């Protein structure tokens, strides 16, 4: 789609104006319907160059710094914050002539998975407005799924690109950790945070990352990935070896499974058969259930601890909303008390708890050790297999039924995508049909820096599944 748009922009000098005017008009309409933007922008036409992204509109998650443009993180504490610098990703996109038409709503500061906790309200699913988009990159997913833009930028700490992609029937790609610079991204949990892309086909995801990847002197954890991500995207995947996890995919592991769960796993198994017909070997492997059940607690422990530390800079003193008091500590406390929602405060309290001197070994350090065990386990598996394939979870929940309250139940099906963050693995979600008239997704995850291979597999599977380039058709 990006390639076709580019060809049209090159060959028709009136097309950029038409595309831009149409997109900006649609932004207004879709904002009214889905509440996907914090800020809508009206970029000016640009010079169309040989670069594939020049002149193409995109949407940007509102947790990236944009110079002179409101950047809120969807939190009240930053509701009037206008940065004085661009994130590296934004700077690169600007230099390429890409046109940002809006900054999208996220779960407050990236901490949530529903798209319902941003300070400007709930983002609605363009397939059905009573349902969530998932999060935290909710607005970015909505912008792409509704057909407003061909790509959007997101961030992914636990599954924040790949889960909303599944729930809105699009592609969500998180490259290997560090391939896209995190400089200027509002850091949530630095060791887990990834920048990534949402698109309506795999090739577009590869195109955008190909343009934006690279070591950034401003992000010491960024890396060079020399591989071209497009070159082998159409290569045959015959004889590739994939695996899935029995404990997640076998219906017999679930006590009294719901009809929705049965249908979701049925669609997954159908896709496995389709993939086998491409000459791909797909094997079922078993992983210690206790380790899988520890994925979400490990994520909560590490991410809350890192967030507690990272967001200690939100004091309202040098930026953000300043608190009221004649005492500086009380001033900071007032700003933070008023600026954070209850749910965010709860995450910080958990972070504070696991970092207490008496709890650090028991929780925080042990969580980091469990992370090591998980990564060791999957590193070994990736020596034998090209990729892990798994269902992304059930279809979207109703807005009226979501809860961000942490449950003691550990739902592995809904929380396994965090494996990709633990190991920094390249991981991509593509649409895998519908259950209850709502989209579901499948995910491919592979070894670090093997992005080209993962994109190749996802691209070839996308070809045979029939959901490429789909745009949400609201069923209600």
């Amino acid at each position: 789609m990006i390639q076709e748009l580019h060809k049209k922009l090159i060959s028709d000098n009136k097309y950029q104006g038409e595309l831009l005017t149409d997109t900006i008009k649609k932004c207004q309409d879709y904002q009214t319907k889905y509440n996907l933007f914090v800020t809508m922008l009206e970029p000016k036409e640009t010079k169309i160059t040989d670069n594939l992204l020049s002149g193409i509109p995109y949407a940007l998650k509102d947790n990236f710094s944009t110079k002179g443009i409101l950047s809120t993180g969807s939190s009240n504490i930053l509701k009037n914050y206008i940065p004085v610098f661009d994130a590296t990703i934004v700077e690169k996109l600007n230099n390429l002539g890409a046109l940002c038409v809006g900054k999208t709503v996220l779960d407050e500061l990236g901490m949530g998975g529903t798209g319902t906790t941003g300070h400007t309200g709930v983002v609605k699913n363009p397939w059905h407005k009573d349902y969530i988009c998932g999060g935290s990159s909710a607005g970015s997913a909505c912008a792409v799924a509704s057909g407003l833009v061909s790509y959007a930028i997101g961030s992914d700490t636990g599954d924040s690109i790949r889960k909303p992609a599944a729930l809105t029937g699009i592609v969500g790609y998180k490259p290997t950790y560090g391939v896209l610079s995190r400089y200027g991204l509002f850091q949530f949990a630095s060791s887990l945070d990834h920048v990534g892309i949402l698109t309506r086909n795999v090739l577009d995801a590869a195109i955008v990352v190909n343009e934006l990847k690279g070591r950034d002197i401003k992000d010491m954890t960024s890396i060079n990935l020399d591989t071209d991500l497009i070159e082998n995207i159409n290569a045959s995947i015959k004889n590739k070896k994939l695996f899935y996890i029995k404990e997640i995919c076998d219906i017999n592991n679930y006590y009294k499974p719901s009809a929705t769960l049965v249908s979701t796993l049925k669609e997954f198994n159908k896709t496995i058969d389709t993939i086998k017909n491409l000459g791909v070997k797909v094997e079922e492997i078993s992983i210690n259930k206790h380790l899988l059940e520890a994925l979400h607690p490990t994520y909560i422990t590490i991410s809350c601890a890192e967030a507690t530390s990272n967001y200690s800079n939100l004091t309202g003193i040098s930026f953000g909303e300043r608190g009221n008091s004649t005492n500086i500590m009380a001033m900071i406390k007032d700003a933070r008390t008023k600026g954070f929602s209850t749910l965010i405060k709860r995450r910080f309290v958990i972070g504070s708890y696991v970092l207490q001197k008496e709890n650090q070994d028991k929780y925080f350090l042990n969580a980091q050790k469990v992370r090591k065990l998980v990564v060791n386990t999957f590193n070994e598996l990736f020596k034998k297999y090209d990729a892990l394939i798994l269902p992304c979870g059930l279809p979207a929940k109703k807005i009226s039924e979501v809860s961000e309250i942490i449950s003691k139940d550990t739902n592995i099906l809904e929380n396994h995508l965090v494996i990709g963050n633990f190991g920094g693995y390249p991981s991509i979600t593509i649409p895998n049909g519908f259950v209850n008239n709502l989209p579901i997704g499948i995910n491919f995850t592979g070894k670090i820096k093997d992005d080209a291979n993962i994109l190749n597999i996802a691209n070839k599977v996308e070809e045979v599944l029939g959901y490429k380039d789909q745009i949400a058709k609201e069923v209600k």
Partner: protein
Amino acid sequence: MKNKFDENEITKLADNLLIGLTKEENKLILDEFSYIEESINKINGITGLDELEPLTHPFPVSLTLEEDIPTEELTIDEVLKNVTDHDGREIKVPKVVN
């Protein structure tokens, strides 16, 4: 299930972070804190952790020193654009030292 936490403990944890909680917020967090602890305690059910080093970064990286290249940085005026209150190049806050 008896809650081993109490309101004061939740308040103390929040105070450490310079965050105030309303009574309702405190109750909400308190009500689920036992479940949170039970959940994160699943970490300690995993065997063999003693032999493992904590993982703090997804994969090993070698950090290299960068070349010293002069770049244009923000001016004081730019930095102060987001400050609510300042006097010249200094950020104004309440008196810290008596």
